[in-house]
């Protein structure tokens, strides 16, 4: 088999993940297969080798994209296992990277094929997997490795229920009960309607009414309980909400009907139960949507460094691994390259390049040596350091930001959604009409009880069932449409808020820009033909962002040997038998490179450096070979997205912790002239948003820890896919693809959805407004209220489905 690594001429798709193959590919010449990366190739052959090739026929609705490269170390999963009868161990994990139903089929069958695995069962909705295995035959690590080798990433997940799970379950039982009893109730109501038109024996009429009473009671008092509780709470704040209207409508219908049984008038038990049932259906749908987005968001959160290596006192060699929560102030702990620091502290030994961009917004790594302070959550890029912890747990800078996020969340005024604003005006109006009806009939000479009955029938008829479905149906069609586009909104409230927003704020690093360095200018010495390939091959091994940028200049690499990353200086390696050095000007001199031999390279390099670029030199065999100038490149589509928002009449500004010069350079590059607030702290970011003319109408987009408070303070916070855990947690929406044009698209969808919600509410109420005059005149009959109810509900359902067709 010949395998070539290199460019392809035609547009091809990866045989495993179906993503379009870009600059680099892995081509298996004779089998005719082509892959986007080595990861996809190995997964493909694993699946073929195990006889699961029908996976590729089964999958439908597959979202293209390369496999996730995951590394699951068993120690993170110790909380997820428990013993089950039969000497087995049960492991519960959430699996990320699932794109369609075939993935679940593959995981279930492939993992259960492993020796010692007894049972694998996955939940299609939550992507939670329960794996039972025999610890004598297979280890936990091997089970996890099997999953990662298939290209999926297992995440630790305890058995605890989330708030969303509980909420959905609660509504499910209440709705199930309500639907069941209402169906039974309708049997007798239908008989009563028929009896109204065709005549009916009085004894049966009475019996059916009594049965209806018994069937309606659990619906009102068990299923309808949340409405009673919520409206009581709202009443204490002197508010009328949806729940108030539901309680007034169904409660008065119920009481009226109980009275009617004894006076022999028509009963409204079916209306009373139907209102509750339909509105519960709406709440159930909404809770399901919330649970789904909650799951999606949870999966985006990466593994936290839940364990830390602590050095034992008085000994430099021995260390113990303990959970982060047990780390104490004054402990010595180790931070390895590639991992975030577990606590704030002072470096005791070693030196490292730390990436603090999530805290400061500065994309360039900061070099830290003995005596320097490091912060929890910042990532060590190169080197290993030993740190004396100075602040742990809730005392760290990171935790202080998390605390202010919580504070901001609590102080955020809950918005009154469209439906509640509607109802707030509607309820007093209905109460007025009912009071007038009562007075008018009393004056006209009807008895007290007769007038009261007519007034109550106004209240009954005024409660629109369709109102309960008006918002949830629109919200769920909108959110399923939005998540299909690639953005998840955590709740319907955020969709409504986003629709009325007109002031947009963007973070710079990682949001408007890629958050990583890209080579903009370079000069390569003519002497060495293959210089670039040699340099890129050496740079590929480095973890430093500048070296990474250099390595992206080439697609094919040589093997690099004797590689060493020297913090704050550069890197060196042997490639193809030649020694390659990459790094700063001073590092070159230290390595004995003659820096005055090629003035065109060094002069340009110094010039770029003064222009604000990061400059890296490189030498091959001790001779200066090239210079690279790099910046944090603007994200593709950022300019288009910002322009589109401005065309819609929205204000756009940039908030950044970086310097004004850096921000200005980025904006100049993408050709935008928008206000910039530069060099500001995370706390100032949220202050700026709070001081905007209307904070509820602001949208903040960001990715770092330093954006978290601002994301919460803004009306709508949108986090990037690569965002840190805390920013994803505090945002009300998360992008699944880091494409800023998604914001524009989502903005349009949300605005249209809000219009549909308003239409729904308007028509739902209109049907009842037509019926109110009939009730005032004392002409209303339960048959009529049932008819209005179904027509308006049907209208709302059909209107909501239009969101799918935009």
């Amino acid at each position, binding site marked *: 088999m010949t395998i070539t690594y290199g460019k392809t001429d035609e547009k091809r798709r990866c045989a495993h993940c179906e993503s379009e193959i870009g600059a680099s590919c892995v081509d298996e010449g004779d089998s005719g297969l082509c892959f986007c990366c080595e990861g996809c190739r190995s997964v493909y052959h694993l699946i073929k080798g195990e*006889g*699961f090739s*029908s996976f590729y026929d*089964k999958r439908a609705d597959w979202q293209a994209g390369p496999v996730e490269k995951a590394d699951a170390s068993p120690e993170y999963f110790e909380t997820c296992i428990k013993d089950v009868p039969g000497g087995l161990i049960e492991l519960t994990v959430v699996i990320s990277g699932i794109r369609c*139903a075939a993935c*679940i*089929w593959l995981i279930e*069958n492939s993992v*259960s*094929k*492993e*020796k010692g*695995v*007894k049972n694998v069962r*996955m*939940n*299609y*909705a*939550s992507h939670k997997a329960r794996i039972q295995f025999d610890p004598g035959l297979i280890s936990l690590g091997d089970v996890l490795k099997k999953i990662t080798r298939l290209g999926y990433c297992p995440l630790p997940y305890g058995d605890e229920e989330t708030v969303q799970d509980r909420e959905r379950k609660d509504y*499910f*039982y209440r709705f*199930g*009960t309500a639907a*069941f*009893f209402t169906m*039974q109730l309708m*049997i007798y109501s239908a008989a009563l309607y028929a009896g109204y038109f065709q005549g009916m024996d009085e004894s*049966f009429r009475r*019996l059916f009414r009594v*049965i209806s009473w018994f069937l309606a009671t659990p619906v009102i008092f068990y299923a309808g309980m949340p409405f009673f509780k919520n409206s009581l709470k709202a009443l204490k704040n002197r508010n009328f909400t949806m729940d108030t209207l539901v309680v007034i409508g169904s409660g008065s219908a119920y009481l009226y009907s109980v009275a009617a049984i004894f006076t022999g008038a028509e009963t409204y038990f079916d209306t009373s139960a139907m209102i509750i049932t339909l509105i519960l259906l709406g709440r159930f749908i909404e809770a399901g949507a919330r649970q789904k987005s909650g799951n999606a968001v949870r999966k985006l959160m990466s593994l936290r460094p839940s364990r830390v290596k602590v050095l034992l006192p008085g000994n430099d060699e021995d260390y113990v691994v303990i959970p982060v929560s047990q780390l104490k102030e004054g402990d010595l702990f180790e931070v390895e390259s590639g991992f975030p620091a577990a606590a704030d502290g002072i470096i005791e030994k070693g030196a490292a390049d730390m990436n603090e961009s999530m805290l400061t917004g500065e994309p360039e790594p900061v070099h830290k040596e003995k005596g320097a302070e490091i912060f929890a959550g910042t990532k060590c890029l190169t080197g290993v350091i030993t740190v004396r912890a100075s602040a742990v747990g809730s005392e760290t800078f990171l935790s202080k930001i998390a605390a202010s996020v919580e504070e901001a969340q609590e102080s955020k005024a809950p918005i009154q959604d469209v439906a509640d604003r509607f109802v707030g005006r509607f309820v007093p109006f209905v109460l007025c009409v009912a009071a007038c009806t009562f007075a008018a009939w009393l004056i006209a000479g009807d008895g007290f009880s007769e007038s009261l009955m007519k007034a109550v029938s106004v209240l009954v008829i005024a409660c629109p069932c369709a109102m309960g479905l008006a918002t949830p149906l629109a919200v769920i069609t909108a959110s399923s449409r939005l998540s299909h586009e690639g953005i998840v909104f955590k709740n319907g409230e955020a969709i409504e808020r986003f629709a009325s927003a007109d002031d947009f704020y963007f973070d710079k690093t990682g949001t408007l820009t890629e958050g990583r360095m890209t080579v903009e200018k370079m000069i390569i010495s003519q002497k060495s033909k293959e210089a670039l390939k040699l340099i890129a091959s050496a740079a590929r091994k480095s973890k430093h962002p500048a070296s990474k940028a250099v390595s992206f200049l080439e697609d094919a690499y040589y093997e690099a040997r004797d590689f060493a990353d020297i913090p704050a200086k550069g890197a060196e390696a042997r490639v193809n038998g030649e020694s390659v050095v990459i790094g700063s000007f001073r590092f070159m001199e230290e390595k004995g490179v003659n820096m005055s031999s090629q003035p065109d390279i060094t002069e340009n390099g110094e010039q770029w450096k003064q222009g604000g670029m990061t400059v890296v030199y490189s030498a091959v065999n001790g001779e200066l070979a090239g210079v690279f100038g790099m910046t944090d490149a603007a994200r593709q589509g950022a300019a288009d997205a910002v322009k589109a928002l401005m065309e819609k009449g929205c204000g756009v500004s940039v908030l950044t912790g970086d310097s004004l010069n850096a921000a200005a350079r980025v904006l100049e590059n993408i050709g935008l002239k928008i206000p910039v607030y530069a060099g500001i702290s995370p706390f100032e970011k949220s202050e700026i948003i709070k001081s905007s003319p209307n904070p509820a109408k602001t949208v903040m987009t960001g990715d770092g820890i330093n954006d978290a408070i601002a994301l919460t303070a803004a009306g709508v916070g949108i986090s990037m896919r690569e965002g840190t855990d805390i920013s994803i947690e505090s945002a009300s929406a998360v992008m699944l693809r880091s494409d800023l044009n998604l914001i524009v698209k989502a903005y349009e969808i949300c605005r249209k959805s809000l219009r549909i919600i308003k239409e729904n509410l308007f028509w739902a109420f209109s049907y009842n407004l037509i019926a109110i005059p009939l009730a005032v005149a004392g002409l209303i009959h339960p048959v009529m209220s049932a008819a209005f109810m179904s027509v308006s509900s049907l209208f709302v359902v059909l209107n909501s489905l239009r969101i799918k067709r935009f």
Partner: protein
Amino acid sequence: MGSLFFLIIISLVAGLAVFCFFLYAGKNKQFDDIEGPKYRMLDDDDDDDNVRENR
């Protein structure tokens, strides 16, 4: 007319039994994964002999 009363009682008792069944099913986690069955129904075709030998 007596038969009508009898039928009403039967329907109410049957209804209550079905409701209890619903609660029982809920307690046994039958509704935890409402997405899965529609896919599993199609998957159980066992066309690869070596897939399920450990089951």
